[in-house]
């Protein structure tokens, strides 16, 4: 006879169920089982009172699709639920989600501490574009945890980084860096595009704002641009006087204090009310719907992405044409142990490797693979390859490339979910082509 006491556990829906259902109630949408595409710019008001109530944030609802849209709203709730966040705001792309996050947080004269290993476009946003708005940044290498602390200034308003850096696969010690941020009274913002909430939920490791390019693994199909910012709800904006635009009366909404009124959803409310109103990088309902189709199979796809990636890592490590392989699953990867902790469900499907023969071999490889697609995207269900130094990061000068940990022999591989042997066979064709020019020149 068991003497175990029966305990009750919450029956809230789990990840796979939320991926299919969160944010949507069919009975409120004519019983439509699928999320409807609300292809409309604007919404009828019941009367003048109703209109005023919506504009005054007295009640929830939609006014104009730049600010919110019911289809987009389902996507926002779904991602918030999967991340364990309180609220989310979808945008037209991942870049606009980053921009909107920064502009919601910062004013001219503010400063950010930023990981140096980022997507090239993000580097340029922080390095060149934000200074035009009076927002300056200090870059720190992702593994230099103490460096993040040292870089914080009086006017620093947050720390930003990609959890696993693009494209070198260097991992930020998120729990430690979150502690540094919180000790300084500032939030940690993490771009977790590479992980999706299936591999890592950054809020459980101290992040305050999570950003995704939904274009990538979340959608998976490579058909639609989309981004999102998700709020964790724990950060106390009122703990210091660093965030007056969150805590002081806001002229744009009858003296509203977002932090006092909306607490754990204050950042998202401000990003929508101010950022979407004034900048307008809204997501189209069609693209939101497309992304929702992808999210329905997120966990199924991510498992295959990760298992294929681990197979490809073994294959590349054993290959005579490969100089080096960077993936957190490789035991001698400097962040191997940290990855086990932060990415327990899989280490992701981004691999960086160096091809013997340098830039010329890299070009030959990429020009000759047939199944793998040569393009400027990651996280498609199809296998993708690119040579970052001549592609995604080509707008960076030599010194910046070096600081970002990039080399001319590096090939970035986003492993798809095709049959693993077909991917390997395709790579053999690429490697053979990469060897040929060298053989010729040796003769």
């Amino acid at each position: 006879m068991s003497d175990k006491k029966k305990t009750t556990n919450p029956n809230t829906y789990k990840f796979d169920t939320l991926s299919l259902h969160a944010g949507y109630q069919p009975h409120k949408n004519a019983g439509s089982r699928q999320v409807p595409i609300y292809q409309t710019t604007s919404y009828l008001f019941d009367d003048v009172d109703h209109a005023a109530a919506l504009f005054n944030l007295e009640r929830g609802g939609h006014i104009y699709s730049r600010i919110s849209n019911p289809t987009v709203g389902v996507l926002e709730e779904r991602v918030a639920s999967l991340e364990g966040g309180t609220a989310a705001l979808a945008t037209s792309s991942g870049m606009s989600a980053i921009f909107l996050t920064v502009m919601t947080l910062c004013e001219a004269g503010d400063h950010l501490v930023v990981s140096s290993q980022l997507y090239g476009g993000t580097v340029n946003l922080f390095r060149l574009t934000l200074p035009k708005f009076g927002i300056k940044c200090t870059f720190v290498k992702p593994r230099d945890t103490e460096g993040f602390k040292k870089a914080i200034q009086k006017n620093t308003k947050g720390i930003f980084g990609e959890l696993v850096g693009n494209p070198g696969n260097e991992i930020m010690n998120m729990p430690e860096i979150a502690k540094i941020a919180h000790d300084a009274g500032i939030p940690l913002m993490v771009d977790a595009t590479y992980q999706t909430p299936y591999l890592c939920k950054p809020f459980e490791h101290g992040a305050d704002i999570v950003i995704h390019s939904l274009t990538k693994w979340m959608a998976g199909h490579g058909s639609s641009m989309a981004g999102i910012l998700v709020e964790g709800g724990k950060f106390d904006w009122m703990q210091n006087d660093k965030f007056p635009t969150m805590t002081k009366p806001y002229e744009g909404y009858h003296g509203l204090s977002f932090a006092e009124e909306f607490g754990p959803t204050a950042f998202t409310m401000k990003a929508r009310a101010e950022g979407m109103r004034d900048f307008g990088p809204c997501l189209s309902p069609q693209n939101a719907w497309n992304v929702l189709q992808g999210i329905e199979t997120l966990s199924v796809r991510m498992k295959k992405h990760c298992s294929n990636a681990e197979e490809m890592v073994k294959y590349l490590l054993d290959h005579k044409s490969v100089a080096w392989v960077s993936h957190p699953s490789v035991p001698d990867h400097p962040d191997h142990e940290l990855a086990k902790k932060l990415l327990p469900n899989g280490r992701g499907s981004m691999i960086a490797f160096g091809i013997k023969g340098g830039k010329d071999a890299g070009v030959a490889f990429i020009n000759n693979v047939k199944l793998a697609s040569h393009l400027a995207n990651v996280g498609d269900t199809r296998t993708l390859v690119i040579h970052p130094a001549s592609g995604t990061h080509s707008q960076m000068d030599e010194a910046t490339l070096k600081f970002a940990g990039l080399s001319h022999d590096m090939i970035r591989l986003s492993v798809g979910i095709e049959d693993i042997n077909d991917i390997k066979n395709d790579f053999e064709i690429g490697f053979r082509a990469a060897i040929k020019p060298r053989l010729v020149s040796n003769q």
Partner: protein
Amino acid sequence: MKFKVNNEEVYASTGGRPFDKNKPLIIFVHGSGLTHMTWVLQTRYFAFHGYSVLALDMPGHGLSGGKSLKSIEDMADWIKAVIDAVDYKEASLVGHSQGCLVTIECTSRYPDKIKTLSLMGGAGAIPMNPELLSLAENNDPKAVDLMMDWAHGPAGHFGGHPVPGLYHINTGGMLAKSRTIKDTLGVDFRACDNYKNGFEAAKKIKIPTLSILATDDKMCPVKEGKKLADLIEGSKVDIIDNCGHMMLLEEADRVLKVLKKFITTNYPSKFK
């Protein structure tokens, strides 16, 4: 806004409008372990339509100072002290869940101070599940997770927040975790469990009273809400279908519509 009651700082949302002592006052009283933020989709309407609103953070909760009050009776006296502190002679009360016990007790104790009473997800008694009570008193976050599970109806578990982009189970959970669980939820649950005077207090109430109940409310089921309403003379009952205990978020618009009609009829404001 912030003010003092019993020498402790009190925070109350005024619904996004300045507090105006000339306007009739509505006080919103939150449920166990929660804060003023649960009322955001009701308070702002009244604040923009001729009323002064105080959505309170109870002592030790949200942005208020002090320690959580240990009994429903103490909370009822504290609400009366709030009315005095803001220099009003009378107010309308709106309560949710534990807030219903508090407002019933307050109305029975200070009948001249309270003009209307609106109860959401209320019952005459809220005996606590022993396991939930123990978890909360032992500061276990599972108490919040269980509360959020039971407090939302089947539809609410899918989300569908009236404010685009907000996911209410996680938002509610974060509110309940905003202070130390044992000091807020633990103390509140014990106060609810100990309170036995709800039905007697209800019999004394002679003011216009509205009970908003929800068909899928597991924490204060419809039959318990009706039992309470039957004891209040002339009490009105409105039942919201396909909705759980967190009706003020799950079905914010429907709740506001009923509340608006009741308050503007029974406690009209001459202000616009």
